[in-house]
């Protein structure tokens, strides 16, 4: 079945089996390997991408369901060689150690900050509760998201 979609502003198409999962289409067909596969059981959130602006676990969506829709992956955050404020926040606040969960954390946080301009720590912890990190204990991830919220409020993108 032929599917077409826009990912990070670029048009993509592929002929896929209906059973192909979206994360495999993104990684193995379109070679956008920033999106990770962690648990493969809908728990960890490492595969989180935005589907029409909503954060979804791409291991639990069929590629055919993304037909004619708009996606954003972690590769879409950086613009013209400049890291997104969220990425800068993760660097500044040491929001990652091994980095495996980071693409998912970034995409979830991106969708969250689009709706919540001045989140509290509790809001952030609730928002990222479907993304597991086994290194940081979340403290620095929360700080990184706060860092980005502040940067965006002060005029970042």
């Amino acid at each position, binding site marked *: *079945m032929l599917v077409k979609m826009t990912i990070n502003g670029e048009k993509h198409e592929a002929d896929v*089996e*209906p*059973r192909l*999962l979206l994360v495999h289409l993104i990684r193995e067909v379109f070679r956008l390997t920033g999106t990770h596969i962690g648990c*493969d*059981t*809908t*728990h960890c*959130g490492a595969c*989180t991408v935005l589907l029409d602006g*909503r*954060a*979804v*676990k791409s291991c*639990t*969506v*069929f590629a*055919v*369901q993304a037909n004619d829709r708009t996606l954003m992956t972690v590769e879409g955050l950086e613009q013209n060689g400049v890291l997104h404020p969220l990425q800068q926040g993760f660097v500044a606040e040491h929001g990652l150690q091994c980095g495996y969960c980071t693409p998912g954390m970034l995409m*979830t946080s991106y969708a969250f900050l689009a709706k919540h301009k001045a989140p509290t720590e509790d809001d952030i912890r*609730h*928002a*990222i*509760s*479907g*993304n597991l990190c086994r290194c940081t204990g979340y403290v620095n991830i929360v700080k990184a998201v706060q860092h980005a919220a502040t940067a965006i409020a002060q005029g970042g993108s």
Partner: protein
Amino acid sequence: MIPATFEYHAPTSVQEATALLARLGDDAKILSGGQSLIPLMKLRLASPKYLVDINGLPGLDKIAESDGFLRIGGLCRESDLEESELIRTRYPLILDTCRVIADPIVRNLATVGGNLAHGDPANDHPATMLALGAEVVAVGGSGERRIPIAAFFTGPFTTALRTDEILVEIRVPIPPARSGGAYVKLERKVGDFATAAVAAQVALAADGTCARAGIGLTNVGATPIKAQRAEAALTGQRVDEAAIKRAAGLAAAAAEPAADLRGSVEYKTDLVRVLTARALHRALERASGPGR
């Protein structure tokens, strides 16, 4: 993990979808949010020959009050409920529930209709809808019918829906003034099924006695459980500590949990007693508070 092969259909109207379901029969499964079905397919616990994707059906994602009912479209996402001003301000029991289902990312796709139609006794909306006295609207080849929620769950992962029927709407009677509800869930971690959970909804009469009580239990039986004796024990009574204690005991007696990694039968049964009391306290607080 790769699911078995299947044939994919994406109908664009309810009529087209029900005709497809009638034609494909028991080999077909409806794909709604997919957050239960796709994991089951990946584990090959489900290998349907045909998937009928209903996400393209128009008009099934509304949340609105009309004709005395709160009407929730079958394709309404859990996160839509969580963000709905109507739900936030007037339906605390539903808000409590949708905030503890799976995790926030899963809730961006998971649908209310799917949470009910899956028929999983561990799902959270069933108990809540039992407590609220909701009804389910199903559309099939022979038209539309309304199914009272108490008659909807017929066995584990089995509902009153026929092969060609789609759950298109959930109707909740708009609670009268001085109503309140609460959902209290114990889970080991975010995203886990409930060890046990209790939904409670109460309406108070002018004299402060309980005009109506609804109590639903999650994951302590082969189906979601309506704790009818506990409800009856509260109705018409002044809901004081003694009445709550009695109702909590009756709710625990209605539970039929199985022992598993989450706990023993004794533990879960006693948990239902404790959670029922907590849910009733919170529901009463809300019923007596400002607004609804």
